[in-house]
């Protein structure tokens, strides 16, 4: 008998160790971020310079915005491969509206909308593309992977068609048309911080609020965890799913506008393969591709890790091939740690449950 029962001293020791381990695991993405920043700032003196920080945070902001939208989609158990193409198409739509306006041939006039109108039209266009994704997925029961893969090609195709594959250059508008100021979106700043970072922060805050404090967010998690149970609980599954793709489309459109504005040009290939970076950020941040687990906070950290890693390696002069190897390895490693953490949490929960089982006369353990 004595060999069986752990002594109280041993037990308390074990708990403090698991507590520490749990803390490390829970904050792992954040710890990784700090480590990455630390390593780069030691290896490269310019890494922490103000100039580099500005560039880096702009890159992060773009990927983070896409990843925020992607998080909603992945939480429902779906995937959105079309975000990069939506970025490109909205950039072309915005660029075209500024440089060419809306040509109404039958009236013989060209309307040049105000810059704000152009931004709103572009955002609506991106959201509509997301809505088409959602519609195809929910109404026609097409797997999200396929539906958004289709949109990836279609949207990219239209981006090229818009100006026969050419760039809309110098999209600054003309004072006489009243459509100037588009470049300020990418170049302007408030309190010394560029607009794109403010936009990211606002989007992240709203997204965090939606996922944690609104019924809609809870529904998103439930659909990813068990769609049948969610439906039986009265969750309107199809509308919720459609909205999720619209959110992703909206975020993509925002990124398209930011990039076009920063470059003061709209290129049809804008945003190519951005979907992969967004997915990587989401996964790195601990959101399960199977759906139902994860959150915005993790995604944000994931986007920072990817951005910092990418730019840091460039600064160190690491070859672009090695950059890819390292990025890939980090993503897979993150998911491995994620799995370990999920298992550990499960064990801890079981343990807690067994403790109350032991404290009541009739045990209630999960094994049966």
């Amino acid at each position, binding site marked *: 008998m004595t060999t069986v029962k752990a002594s109280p001293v041993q037990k308390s020791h074990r708990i403090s160790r698991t507590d520490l381990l749990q803390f490390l695991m829970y904050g792992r993405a954040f710890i990784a971020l700090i480590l990455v920043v630390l390593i780069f700032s030691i290896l490269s003196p310019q890494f922490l310079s103000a100039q580099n920080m500005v560039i880096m945070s702009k890159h992060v902001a773009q990927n983070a915005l896409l990843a925020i939208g992607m998080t909603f989609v992945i939480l429902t158990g779906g995937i959105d491969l079309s975000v990069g193409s939506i970025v490109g198409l909205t950039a072309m739509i915005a660029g075209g509206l500024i440089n060419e306006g809306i040509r109404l041939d039958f009236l013989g006039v060209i309307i040049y909308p105000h810059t704000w109108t152009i931004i709103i039209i572009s955002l609506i266009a991106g959201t509509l593309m997301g809505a088409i994704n959602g519609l195809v997925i929910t109404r026609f029961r097409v797997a999200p992977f396929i539906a958004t893969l289709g949109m990836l090609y279609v949207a990219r195709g239209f981006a090229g068609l818009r100006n026969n594959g050419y760039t809309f250059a110098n999209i600054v508008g003309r004072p006489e048309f009243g459509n100037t100021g588009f470049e300020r979106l990418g170049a302007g700043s408030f309190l010394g911080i560029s607009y794109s970072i403010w936009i990211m922060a606002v989007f992240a805050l709203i997204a965090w609020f939606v996922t944690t404090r609104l019924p809609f967010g809870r529904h998103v*998690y439930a659909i990813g965890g068990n769609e049948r149970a969610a439906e039986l609980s009265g969750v309107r599954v199809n509308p919720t799913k459609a909205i999720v793709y619209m959110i992703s489309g909206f975020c993509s459109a925002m990124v398209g506008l930011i990039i076009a504005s920063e470059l003061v040009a709209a290129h049809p290939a804008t945003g190519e393969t951005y979907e992969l970076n967004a997915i990587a950020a989401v996964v790195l941040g601990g959101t399960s591709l199977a759906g139902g687990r994860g959150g915005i906070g993790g995604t944000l950290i994931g986007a920072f890790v990817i951005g910092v890693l990418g730019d840091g390696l460039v600064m160190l002069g690491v070859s672009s091939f090695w950059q890819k190897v390292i990025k890939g390895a980090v993503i897979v490693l993150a998911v491995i740690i994620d799995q370990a953490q999920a298992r550990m949490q499960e064990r801890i929960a079981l343990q807690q449950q067994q403790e109350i089982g032991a404290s009541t006369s009739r045990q209630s353990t999960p094994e*049966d």
Partner: protein
Amino acid sequence: MSLTSTFSSTAMGSMAIGDKVVLRAENITKVFPGTLALDHVTFDVYEGKVNVLVGENGAGKSTLMKILAGAEQPTQGRILLEGKEIRLRNPLDATHYGIGIIYQELNLCPNMSVMDNIFLAREIRGWGSIDRRTQRKIVLQLMKRLEHSIDPDTLVSDLRIGQQQIVEIAKALAQKVRVLIMDEPTSALSAAEVEVLFRVIRELKAQGVSIVYISHKLEELLQIGDYITVLRDGRVVAHAPIEGIDVPWIVERMVGRSLSSVFAREEHQKGDVLLRVEDLTLPRVGGGYLLDHISFELRAGEILGFYGLLGAGRSDMADCLAGRRPEATGRIYLNGKELKSNSVSERLAAGIVLVPEDRQRDGLVPTLSVAHNMLLASLQRYLNRFFLVRRKEGKAVRDLIHDLSIRVANPSQPITSLSGGNQQKVVFAKGLLTTPKILILDEPTRGIDVGAKAEIFEIVNRLARQGFGIIFISSELKEILAISDRIIVMSKGEITGEFRREEATEEKLVAASFVGHTANNHKNENHHQKNGREH
């Protein structure tokens, strides 16, 4: 030693006479972090006998089974096969020694055919490729033996749970086993299917296969078992031959209290007609009806039982009421007003809640916490203008955890860490939080132990007292007779009998459940199996 009760020591004498111990778990102790799951347990499996193992959830049955099946390793103790010590490091070792197990949670691949499942990882090969013809022949033989006409090429996902259970049994039979462990094999089977299973078990016994049988259905154990071992809190509290044992004896040893408190009958004050269903009809794909013009009434404070065989249409009826079958026709009146809506969310808003038959598949979101699962159907109630208020959520969760005495250390822990009975209570809680008028309980006591069953009964009785209208679907005669004020029996999509509590007997219910199944029973039963999928 654990085998200390006077009863078992006298019983030991009679056992020693003819029966040979084939498998022996000796002095097994298993420690999990924080608990002692098994405490010096010795368990003998007699050759060619049905060795029954009972105990409440958490008594250690499943742990002991996992050790015998090689899925867990004991902290202490040893396992002897015909007197020789064996090591079971993994399930493959156990298979190697001829120990097979059918787990309570089905372990089939839903995306594969019945045949592919049965031969998974044991495919029969001819000239290197899979010999489908031989496999098919064996499956058909097995199905004949199990008296089911499930087509070997059917996808498992197209089968009802009861049929999946049959496939699981066929899978075990396809392997040459000498010890077969069955963990709750009948929890999803109808009375007729249980009979078939018992015939198969007797056949296996005659062939010298030893059975370890775990079930919560005590009458069943007495019918099929030869020896019984009762576990409580990780210890063996009794071990005896089944002869001369009755249900109260088992319950007393399992829980330390008598059965009458478990199946307490209660008289309910009945109010006005709450629900009136007229001509509810659900066509079957390929002709005929799953539900054939069903009409009935439910009063406030009434518990209306629905009894029937597998595929009788009870679950379809429940689905229709809950709004899961928009293609159903007929009229449903709630408080005298006809319900026009036909979606789950609208029916929920109207006050009709379904606690589904399959907890795992339809009831719970495994990735969410206990609290979030409970709140899922009623989130609108915790809004402050437009965001969720933690304080309101927390209060609702705490109140119901207390009301339903859900045993959970912390509401934010994952739902998967709870026992079956407590998970079921969470599904109940989720339904109750929507402030329903009508609760439809589809097999609410499936796979949960006597103690938890008693609690569920108590909750159902209390809800009836509070004026809810309750539809209680069950395949267990004793249960449905104990709790219902009125019982409707269905067969082949039709109502074939309706009995008040006073006039209902087991015989009457069973007779009504077979209406439409002619004297040539098996043939029809099979036919019915093939077409009568409820989902």
